[in-house]
């Protein structure tokens, strides 16, 4: 967290900080981080947080999703991990986590943890373009930022076409549909983060603590 803060302080321009979920996990106590996100210091950027897969698991397990519990986590990782997760987060933070949004839409950009279909969906360079296009269409955005896969990538859908012919009781009609330019951006995870300049549509993939002055030139607004 402190490495990010140091990096971002050096970055010129007006920066908006989005945190795309998985702020918590079972490995270590998350309370200090959550406290810092909720109560940023006076010189911190105000973080805009959404919930991720791990937040969804703790909400499930804590009864915030009706009768459902974190069964997928329990089956895949075991009871110990479920316990570790609930022990890692003080209950006083649960209402804040429960109030987090699924995602943000800023300008023509969607910011989500997994995909617009599912918080647990991995979008990667190997995801079929048709699926990526669908996830963009669901949010009605031209840029989709995703974190779930932990990968850093910037995949542009530059053009596309499909011919549609519909026959119904009124007759036949044909239509050619084209893809406007869109992109899906994997922002990374852990020490890796992404700077995005909405003016130039450029991304910069950064590892916290390793960013040089030269590399940040021309970037700044997230």
């Amino acid at each position, binding site marked *: 967290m402190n490495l990010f803060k140091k990096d971002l302080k050096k970055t010129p321009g007006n920066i908006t900080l989005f945190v795309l979920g998985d702020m918590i996990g079972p490995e270590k106590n998350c309370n200090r981080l959550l406290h810092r996100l909720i109560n940023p210091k006076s010189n911190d950027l105000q973080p805009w947080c959404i919930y991720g897969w791990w937040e969804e698991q703790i909400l499930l397990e804590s009864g915030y999703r009706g009768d459902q519990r974190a069964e997928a986590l329990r089956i895949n990782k075991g009871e110990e991990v479920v316990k570790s997760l609930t022990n890692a987060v003080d209950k006083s933070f649960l209402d804040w986590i429960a109030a987090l949004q699924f995602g943000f839409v800023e300008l023509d950009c969607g910011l989500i943890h997994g995909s617009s279909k599912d918080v647990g969906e991995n979008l990667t360079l190997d995801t079929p373009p048709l699926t990526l296009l669908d996830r963009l269409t*669901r949010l009605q955005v031209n840029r989709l930022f995703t974190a779930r896969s932990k990968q850093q990538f910037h*995949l542009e*859908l530059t053009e596309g076409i*499909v011919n549609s012919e519909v026959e119904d009781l009124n007759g036949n009609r044909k239509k050619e549909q084209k*893809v406007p330019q869109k992109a899906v951006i994997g922002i990374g995870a852990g020490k890796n983060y992404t700077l995005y300049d909405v003016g130039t549509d450029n991304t910069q993939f950064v590892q916290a603590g390793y960013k040089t002055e030269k590399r940040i030139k021309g970037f700044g607004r997230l």
Partner: protein
Amino acid sequence: MNQAVISCLHANLPAVEAVLKDIELQGITNITCLGDLVGYGPQPNKVIELIRDKEIPTCQGCWDEDVVDGLDACDCSYPSQLAEKRGHFAHQWTTDKLTTENKDYLANLPYSIRKDKCLFVHGSPNSQHEYLLPDMDAFAALERVENARAEILFCGHTHQPYIRELADGSIAVKIKNAVPKDTQEKEIQLPMRRIVNAGSVGEPRHGGTKATYVVYNDVTNEVKIREVEYDIELTCKAIIDAGLPPIFAWRLKNGFEFAEQAEDASHVCER
């Protein structure tokens, strides 16, 4: 071989009997039903028992699911509060009338049926509540079929029969900021896929009063939309006699489209 696909029977026994008769007259024995056996109409038990007696493979529709699960129909499907109230009333009425045996039958229906390259669902492969309307985004429509690993997707739910072919598609992609640094570009060809909507037997919303279904020939790949007349007066009288909202009879008799559906084709119930 010809096979018939029927959907959205909605407890309208005269319509179901007429359509089954029409199918029989064509010598078709292979029938698949896409659900919504109940809801709106006055004969839920008789319609279920007819489908059960004939052992017609059937998917679970959104009404079938809601009645069984004790959930009210998805609020967001209704165009107005009045329509929502009528829908809720019909749900409660249907729930009260259904026998335990028939509820169990609905509860155990599968979400989808797969036969070779064909997938049969009520709404979409994603949800029984998702509407695949005929003019929805072509790429999104293609995604529904392709991600379901089908070549032809048979659906209902909209009550509007149509055949949609999606062909000659491609998407070009470019990896920016790639590691190593060189930009990678490629063009992906999209497969030809079809969506076939069987319309509705028991509550048509295509602007006419006739029941609709489709006939698919799995050798020639031809699909034909069939329209069938039935004794509408009989159903309308049964609706009134049962104490169901008279507008349910009115819209059947007049053939006006009075679709109680979400306007957004890509909308998925978040319940």
